[in-house]
């Protein structure tokens, strides 16, 4: 019995420690800008604003703007974007607010899809629907 209680206590502690060390809040650009906390890990989701994407192959600097229709956040990332990442499409980035006016992304997540989406499905994304699907994205480093 005592052994069981010890095991249970250790487990509860592990779960508690695990949760407190690794929770990641999902925010939209508007939510992030309302209360930016530099250094805290967020998952930021929005649409890659058409025309905002720049890529410098030499320095591997990838810059773009994420938008939720209400606010926009400039994002910087080191390295190429994953497959399925493109302007006008939804993306979720994980990283932190730099405190200098941009979001520093460590990971870019794009959704893999089991089925093709016809081009017109994504050409005019409804922000609401887009955010609904993005909020569910899970990390794949």
């Amino acid at each position, binding site marked *: 019995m005592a052994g069981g209680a010890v095991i249970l206590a250790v487990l509860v502690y*592990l779960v508690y420690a695990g949760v407190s060390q690794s929770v990641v809040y*999902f925010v939209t650009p508007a939510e992030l800008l309302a209360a930016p906390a530099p250094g805290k890990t967020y998952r930021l989701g929005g649409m890659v604003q058409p025309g905002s994407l720049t890529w410098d192959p030499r320095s591997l600097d990838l810059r773009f703007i994420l938008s939720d229709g209400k606010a926009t956040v400039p994002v910087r990332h080191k390295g190429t974007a994953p497959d399925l990442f493109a302007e006008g*499409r939804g993306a979720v980035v994980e990283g932190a607010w730099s405190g200098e006016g941009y979001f520093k992304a460590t990971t870019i997540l794009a959704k*893999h899809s089991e*089925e093709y989406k016809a081009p017109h499905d994504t050409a005019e994304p409804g922000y609401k629907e887009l955010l609904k699907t993005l909020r569910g994205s899970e990390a794949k480093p």
Partner: protein
Amino acid sequence: MIIGAPEIGYALTVVGLFLALWGGAAAVTGARSGRLAFVASAERAAVAVWALVTACMLLLIHAFLTFDFSIRYVAANTNRGTPFYYRITALWGALEGSIILWAWMLGLFTFIVVLRYRRRQPELYPWVLSVMLGVLAFFLLVMAVPAPPFERLTPVPADGRGLNPLLEDSGMITHPVALYLGFTGFTVPFAFALAALAVGRTGEEWITITRRWTIIAWYFLSLGLLIGGWWSYHVLGWGGYWAWDPVENAAFMPWLTGTAFLHSVMIQERRRMLKLWNLTLIILTFGLTLFGTFLTRSGIIGSVHAFTQGSIGVFFLSFLAVVLLGSFSLLAWRVDRLKGQGELDSIVSRESVFLLNNVFLVAASFTVFFGTIFPLLTEAARGTKVSVGAPFFNLVNIPLFLSLLFLMGVGPLIAWRRASAESLRRNFLKPVLAGLVAAAVLRALGVANMLVLTCMALVVFVTGTMVLDFWRAVRARRRTGHGWAAATGGLLVRQNRRYGGFVVHLGIMVVALGVAGSQAWSHSTEATLAKGESVELAGYRVRFDGLAASEESNHFKVTGTFSVAHGTRPVDVLQPAKKFYPREQTPIAYVDYRLGLIEDVYLVLGDFARDGTQATVKVQVNRMVSWLWLGGLVLTLGAALAVLPDSRRPA
């Protein structure tokens, strides 16, 4: 009204559904009233249902092969450019077809149950049949209502949309099949468990009968998980094999409880303990296979896998509720017959080690469950979307898995009931010393990562216990006049369950080493190279030699050529590519790699200049990843040995 393949398929499904329902009800009636005519009718229904599902499957395969785009599912998952064998495997390329495959396997297993147990287990058999047919009826209901594979598409398009390019891979052919064999395989022990409860024969019988089913189901589930890792590794281009994604977790949870079940039934067979626990475990395992499907298909938790979503989630959740309520009511009704006859004599015994193994496995399953649904909990409680990622799962599960590894060394050798100090010393002193020496040597060699060090020392310890045990057994047989080969072979065959288990444990350890090594020692970098330029990583030099473009059957491909050298010695030429599918808006990376026992060189082509003068490449040197796949092979050998007919007793 036109009558074509869609209508025929739908008709077959509906007839199958009613036959399954009738068969399930008839089997129960027959069992309760003792009127064998009902059981015989249920039996005929079971065979007919399997034939109908087979017909559905053949019909759909035929539609794929003949490009019958009047069926929505065919149009959505194939097009005229899809290669021949992917047109067959496109059958399970998406939800609706997967359900057919699942139902077909269930039907096949029901058929085998009919063949094997109609005479041998006259009392349990009708109940088993009714549970199997009940589950089958549910899947046919799913095929008839929320996920109809034969839905007609009007107007008929000239060409289909094609299979997702990521699924055009050998891993995607085998991974779902193995996984579904695992999922459906657990239905048989589950059905026998419920039958045992219904009849009131709650002894060891149902466990003995389904022993091999459990091992086979467990094996295929393990294989499915490993093949999934292989697919993720060589297709997705992020260099990893496991990401604690909800879809992966969904398959991992039943694996954990199934593994617990596989072990705890041994205690019941031997000591008649844990009756209630074993029944609970198999109900949970079966429930988790349904829950996984609910989780991934309902859309309540998003995943990178992004399956099709729809009302199917409601069906699975309702069925899960019915299954759990029904099973646990049955359990509660029979609870007075489920008192264990044996008792735990000592904490230092095989029983208690197995018990601990169960506690850890179920705890791991629970934490995976908790982490997976965590976003739902926080959203319900506080309205914010919060998720826990890989760090949570790693932090919580690594201590559990290391403990399990340790128990793997203790369990098979420690005595039943009560282990004496003398037997502990005899069995464990040398292996423990070997583990400690290994840790010291590895530390001296420069292995600094504590997790890897612990894992490797534990592996040496566990291997030591097994070698010692096997060596003693071989020596004992030698004394009775056998030669070396005869002694070893005879031992493996005569005690195939025990040594099959040993080999499976070896396989798990090889996988564990692969996981530890790859997490600790892999390297990765990214660089943009002009033609002739190179990048260095972990002793390798990767030079960009140029780009080439080509037209393939259903896509356009840009291939980069990179020569890889280790120091000054040329090793290989790798050709990662980007594939442009006309219907996809963004290209798909095609990874190229050189696999090795110690390390893989792994290249992903990123961006490139259109004139071919410059390309961005991601280079990874992944250590010991191959051990995962090797572990899978060892696991296969062990499982095969364990399911050989028991030669000591007539089966």
